[in-house]
């Protein structure tokens, strides 16, 4: 009964509060604020401790990537694309590389398909581990983030072993992957997965059965299923509302059709349900990584020979390549005019929708102390909004 009462749908229309009346207070949350995800800010108008209106402000991290890419050779853009979503750069690398391969007509070896899938699942796990720490922290739960960031560091150790880089890997490149797996790598992967899984069991026990977390997260930021198409909501935010959409299943790219997994769906997309669904997806990640290690070819080529990157011209054409990242549909639209530089590269990040239109609506009527928890529960990264 209480939960039903809590699950309110915020009004579609914006309030028009009179700031001169002395009844309201305008305040900024961010860009330097522990309760904000990355470099963005929320302009909140509050009445008492309730948010009446919210506006998302971005631009603190705009580096003009899409403009810069039009000035650089196809291959020179690689150090740029991975910086568009910092905690999970591999999805940028995959989408950009796959778009180039499609336009240039390059087929990649089977081993590269598996290693790309491994790289994407590992970064999915790392990103979720960072997110769950943020989600717990937003509700005053400081222990979880210490555990989960430690676990994330173990996964980053694996990336360092695989690619030499911890944050930006540039492991997925056109034609395949940059290098073969080092000796003993798969064994290390399995060991780390065992460690992370044990830690997830602890997190589940401490966080999801905690009465404070349950009371504050249940009903917060409720997304009805009919918003999914109307707002372009994707990923766990949509799946938690019972909409079974996962591009890994729907598009069947890379090695996903050969892996055994089911799309996890929830029933009511509130902050608690979304957190629970992401936790289940973390377990699913670990399972997928184990399957990949088991099935990945142990030898064979890992990269197709490419033309000279300094003189590489890609035939005129356009394509859109999407992948399921931790937050939903991540895509690269790439247009070539037949020259050695892109004509246009446009990045579709799920935060573009979730952090602006959805966040602004969901914040209406929320207690000011819950804004941070709501924001993190949508799992947004500002760099992909600004590019």
């Amino acid at each position: 009964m209480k939960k039903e009462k809590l699950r309110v749908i915020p009004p579609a229309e914006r309030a028009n509060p009179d700031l001169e009346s002395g009844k309201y207070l305008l305040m900024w949350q961010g860009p330097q604020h522990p309760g904000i995800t990355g470099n963005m800010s929320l302009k909140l108008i509050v009445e008492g401790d309730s948010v009446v209106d919210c506006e998302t402000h971005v631009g603190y991290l705009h580096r003009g990537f899409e403009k810069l890419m039009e000035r650089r050779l196809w291959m020179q853009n690689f150090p740029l694309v991975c910086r568009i979503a910092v905690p999970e750069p591999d999805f940028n690398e995959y989408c950009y590389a796959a778009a180039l391969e499609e336009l240039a007509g390059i087929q990649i070896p089977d081993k590269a398909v598996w290693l790309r899938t491994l790289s994407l699942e590992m970064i999915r796990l790392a990103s979720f581990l960072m997110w769950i720490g943020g989600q717990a922290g937003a509700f005053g739960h400081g222990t979880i983030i210490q555990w989960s960031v430690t676990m994330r560091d173990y996964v980053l150790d694996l990336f360092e072993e695989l690619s030499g880089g911890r944050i930006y890997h540039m492991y997925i490149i056109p034609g395949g992957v940059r290098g073969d797996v080092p000796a003993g790598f798969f064994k290390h992967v399995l060991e780390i997965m065992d460690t992370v899984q044990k830690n997830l069991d602890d997190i589940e026990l401490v966080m999801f059965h905690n009465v404070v977390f349950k009371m504050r997260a249940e009903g917060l930021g409720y997304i009805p299923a009919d918003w999914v198409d109307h707002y372009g909501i994707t990923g766990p935010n949509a799946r938690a509302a019972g909409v079974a959409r996962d591009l890994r299943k729907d598009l069947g790219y890379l090695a996903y059709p050969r892996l055994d997994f089911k799309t996890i769906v929830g029933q009511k997309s509130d902050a608690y349900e979304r957190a629970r669904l992401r936790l289940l997806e973390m377990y699913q990640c670990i399972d997928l990584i184990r399957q990949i290690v088991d099935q990945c070819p142990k030898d064979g080529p890992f990269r197709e020979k490419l033309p000279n990157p300094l003189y590489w011209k890609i035939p005129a054409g356009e394509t859109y390549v999407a992948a399921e990242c931790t937050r939903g549909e991540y895509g690269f639209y790439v247009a070539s005019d037949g020259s050695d530089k892109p004509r246009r590269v446009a990045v579709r990040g799920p935060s573009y929708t979730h952090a602006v239109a959805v966040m602004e609506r969901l914040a209406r009527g929320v207690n000011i102390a819950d804004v941070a928890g709501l924001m993190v529960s949508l799992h947004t990264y500002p760099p992909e909004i600004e590019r």
Partner: protein
Amino acid sequence: MNELATRLAARYGARGWHDQRADLATIVLDADRLRDALAYLRDQEGYRHLSFATAIDNIERGVFTLVYTLRSHDKGHSLIVHADIDRQKPVVDSIHLLWAQAWTYQREMKEWYGIDFPGSPRVDEEFVLEGWEGPPMMRRDFDSLAYSDATYAERPGRATSDPARHMKEQLYPEAAE
């Protein structure tokens, strides 16, 4: 999917259907029928998800090409809809009533390309370029390097060179420009 191409051609004068992949096609429309066609695709053909919207500056042809990417999850198919608008008079119908997040894309296109969407919420507000006084920065005739050279002072001791040019000079000195 060719039946869809025929229906779109008959109803909205769509042309140039091109299958890029089995699950991705592109099509071209006239800008004045764009909103109606997008509404039809959403309501009648199942393309209910707007993946993104953006523009390309085709300065050689004097047009901006709008790019709307829709997805039908039921059909497992995506459709990229193009429409050209005059570069000198870049105004097009807003689709913010069709999709609730579309106004953000339109606000971005207004700021980055100078394309106007009358009636779109907050379309004239700054999006990512706070305090920007230059021309719309994604236009092809806006030279970001020349702008930086003219706007910002050189910092002593920080020589830079284009890595691609450097590598060409190192590897192919006879061919380097």
